[in-house]
Each structure stands twice: as C-alpha cells, then as structure tokens.
C-alpha cells in the first residue's frame, strides 16, 4: 500500500513536471535555433543549443534540434532564409536570436524592427511557436556605445514579444546580471569572463544562455537542475597555446609516461587529478 502510494505520488510529481513546460516543448518537437555565429557555435559540444537539447533529453523530452545559425548574419540576411532554414524544415518551435550583428553592422533600428516583425509573423503563420531572445552583450563593458545602442533594439524585442504573443527570453538582462555577479566574485579578473572575444560565449555564457532558454520553455528549477547534472559531464576542448619547442618536449614526456599527449597534459592539471 505504502509503495503504491509512493508510486502514485511520484506519478503526480512527474505529471506536474510535464505540465510545467510549455505545451509545444514535448517529445517530437522540432526546434529551430535561428541566429548568427553565437547560434552557429551553439551547436558545438558545449554550445548553448547543444546544452538545451541535452537538457530536454535529461528531462525525458526527445525533441529534434535544427541548426539555423549562420556566422556574421544580421536580421537582414536571416529574413530571406527563414523559409529554407526554418519553415521548410518543418520546425514547430523557433528560437530567434539576432541583434549583435544588426547593431555592429549598422542595420538601422527601423529596418531591424521590420525584419524581426516579419520573421515572427511568417513563422507564426506557419504554425511555429516563436521564442524571442534578446541580443547578448557586445564586449563585457556595459557602458560601451554598442551596448548602449543595443538597448533600443532589445527594448523593441520586449515590445514585439508582448504584441505577438511570443515568449521572451531576456538574455541581455541575464547576462548583465551574471556579469555583475562574476565581477563581484572575481574582482581581480580584468579580462573577458562570459565571452571569449567580447561576443562569442565561453562555457559561462553558454550555460547562461541554455538555462535561460529552458526557463523560457517553462522548465522548473528542479528540471533545470536535472539538466545541469548532465551539462557538467559534457566534455569539450579548451585551447592551450604552446610553442613547438614546448610541444616537442611535452610530447616526449608523454611518451615516457606511456600516455597520449592530451592525457598527459590533462593529468598535469591538479583539478583533474583531484577529481579522480
């Protein structure tokens, strides 16, 4: 009786978890990630799109991710390819992230507004649920001209989401907050933290983006925690710059230790050793 009660309770909990998600986020959903290079790289192993898909899977949702990010593109290039990149690929959900290149390449706000509105309308007409992602920061310096200029572009997206009934995923706001927290935690760190180059994401940025998107999808805190457990196991590659002289010497050390160079270098790092 006690066991049956527990089973019933867990069933109830799991049902409530399923209902916590937006209805379109379900097994069989086809999620197109439309955007620029940030989204293009989002499909790398620890990129935000890959993490979103992994997070869905960790919560029992078997959806299909459709990569639709192309480097260097603004809304000007995305609009004409919406049909081929998203609609004709039978997407049921689209996350749309355009803005950093619009600001950077000087697409006027009026044109940006027109392009974004048209993309949302066309996608909705095709029955696609649209998630609007605000533009991430341009350089990790809130006061620079580009970030100031982006304020109006993002303000427009917030209005557009309301008008068109889209879910707003406010990456810009989250990124500002994360940056504040990290700068407070690491006052000595003067270099980029969330981005590699002021634009493209480090794992901090990708984790932030993936978490925001999942929250936008209606994920609860416990579902996101489930996703995080899987994310932490995800292995990517991090660059280490060596000279060829160092490379050759380290290679010989690896041979001597009967290891591949990658394993040898990995084992030299205390953090990795501590985890074993």
């Amino acid at each position, binding site marked *: 009786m006690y066991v049956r009660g527990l089973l019933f309770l867990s069933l109830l909990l799991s049902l409530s978890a399923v209902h916590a998600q937006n209805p379109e986020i379900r097994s069989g959903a086809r999620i197109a990630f439309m955007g620029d290079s940030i989204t293009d790289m989002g499909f790398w192993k*620890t990129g935000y799109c890959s993490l979103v898909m992994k997070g869905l899977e960790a919560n029992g949702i078997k959806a299909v991710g459709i990569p639709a990010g192309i480097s260097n593109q603004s809304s000007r290039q995305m609009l004409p390819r919406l049909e081929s990149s998203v609609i004709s690929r039978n997407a049921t959900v689209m996350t749309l992230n355009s803005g950093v290149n619009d600001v950077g390449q000087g697409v006027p706000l009026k044109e940006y507004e027109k392009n974004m509105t048209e993309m949302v309308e066309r996608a909705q007409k095709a029955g696609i649920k649209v998630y609007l992602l605000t533009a991430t920061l341009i350089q990790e310096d809130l006061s620079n001209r580009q970030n100031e200029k982006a304020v109006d572009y993002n303000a427009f997206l917030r209005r557009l989401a309301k008008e068109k009934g889209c879910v707003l995923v406010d990456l810009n706001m989250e990124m500002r907050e994360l940056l504040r927290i*990290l700068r407070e*935690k*690491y006052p*000595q*760190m*003067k*270099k*980029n*933290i969330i981005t590699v180059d002021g634009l493209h994401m*480090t*794992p*901090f940025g990708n*984790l932030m983006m993936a978490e925001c998107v999942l929250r936008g999808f209606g994920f609860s805190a416990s579902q996101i925690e489930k996703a995080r457990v899987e*994310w*932490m*196991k*995800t*292995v*990517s*590659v*991090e*660059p*280490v*710059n*060596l*000279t*060829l*002289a160092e*490379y*050759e*010497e*380290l*290679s*010989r*050390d*690896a*041979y*001597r*230790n*009967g*290891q*591949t*160079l*990658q*394993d040898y*270098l*990995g084992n*030299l*790092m*205390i*953090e*990795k050793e501590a*985890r074993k």
Partner: protein
Amino acid sequence: MSKWIIFLLLAVSASLWAGEPLVRSGMKIAFFGDTITSLGNYPAGYINLTVRGLEANGIPVKKIPAGLGWMTSGQYVPEFKKRVLEKKPDWVTIQCGRSDLYKKGDPAGYRKNMEEIVSLARKAGIRIWILGLTPVCENPDADANKPVNEMNRFLLKLASETGSVYVDVTGPLNQKISECRKEFPGYKGNFVTSWENLTPEGNIVTAETLLQEFGLDAGGIARARNTWKTISYTERLPVSLEEYLLLADKAFTRNLTVAEYMKERIQSARNKDSTIK
C-alpha cells in the same frame, strides 16, 4: 687507372655534396592537396614549417597554399587550374589521395585525374614534386594502411614516368614512429591524429623530408628546426564543463583566462615532474 676513376667519383660526389640547394630565393612554390595540405598552412603545418625553414637558411620563397579540405579526385583538375596554374608557380608539390581514400573514391578516377594534373603542370613548365600519402594510422602493418601503400606505388610510378620527383613521406614517418616505439615502450602515438591528419610531430617530419628533397643538408635542417621552436601551436584539451568551472575559479582570482591558467599549470607541474629540465 682505377685510382683515377676513384678520384673522379670522389670529386663528382664532393661537388654534389657541396652543391647549393635546388631551391632558390624568390621562387614561387605552390602546395596542392587535400585536407592535410590545407591544414599544412597552419602555423605548425608542413607548408609553413617548410617555408620558415627555407627562410632560416636565407632562402625566402613565395608560398602558394593550394590545399582544399576534403578535396577528392573529381575536383583535382578545376581546382589545380584555379589554385596552381593561374598563380604561375616555379614548383608545385602535390599530395592528393587521402580524402579519396577516406571517402572510398574510385581508384581509376583518382589515377586518371592525378595523371591529368601532372600533365597540366608539365605543360606549364612547373617542376613537380609528388608527395607520397601519409599513413592512416601509426601501425605500418595495419590493414588501413594497405591502400596507402598501393597508392604510393602508383605515385612513385607516375613520378618516374613524368620526370617528377617522388617524395617518400610515409617512410620517414614510419621510421620516426618506430624509433619512438623503441625508445619509449609505453608510446601511445602522436604523429597521426584520430582524424587521420598530421599532428605537429607529423608535420615536422613531413617538412624535414621536403627540405631535404629541396636540397638542404643536415646543417640546414638544424637551422630550420631551430627557427620552428618559437612557432605557436594550440593544443586542444578535453575538459568537462565541471572541470572548466573549477579551473575558471582558480584562474579568475589571478586575472588569468582558463587557457592561460591551464598553460601555467602544465608548466609548473612539468617543472616538478619532468625528466627534462
């Protein structure tokens, strides 16, 4: 009489030994090939190492990087015309076939297209260096390497029939790998990547082989090696997100990026443990 013959032979070989390298300052050298050649133009790739090696010996040349990733034989002729012939080089090195092998292309088509580009280069008066293909994996007896050996036999024949120079790259690579195995019984491989491309070790052997063929002597190769020491190379280490966050926590407190911190950790750990000081 026999003394005179010996004297003559010695004189001829001495003059050859002391001869200038075949390669001359200002020459335009095109490097045509598939992925391995495309990657060869990276800082630690064989093209760049060869050119830097020549510079170190006072022989600046103009390189024409003409590698195209994943290029298969159907693309050889149009790509060769565009990437090589139009640039009018003095010499061309050709290393083609690994992408065909990887994609299981038609061997007859491969041979026909190789013959065609060699013929085009000859007509244009370009000196041709046909490079053998690099091994698929580091075991020379592995089945995966058998097609490479077969293709190399064809390339050697093509070179001899067309007055081109055949550059055996596989032999020196296998030799180095074998030396590593002997010297380091636990050796796990470091010349060919899991994607069947060349690591910096593999690129160094290829560049040394080319430089030798271009006429550099042991001193010249040593000068080249010396100049290569400072070339930067990015090794990519597998790191989980959990590990990344731990590393970042240490790095950021010292105003270091994760990459800088990893490099520092490697250096300091190595200084403690390495047998090379």
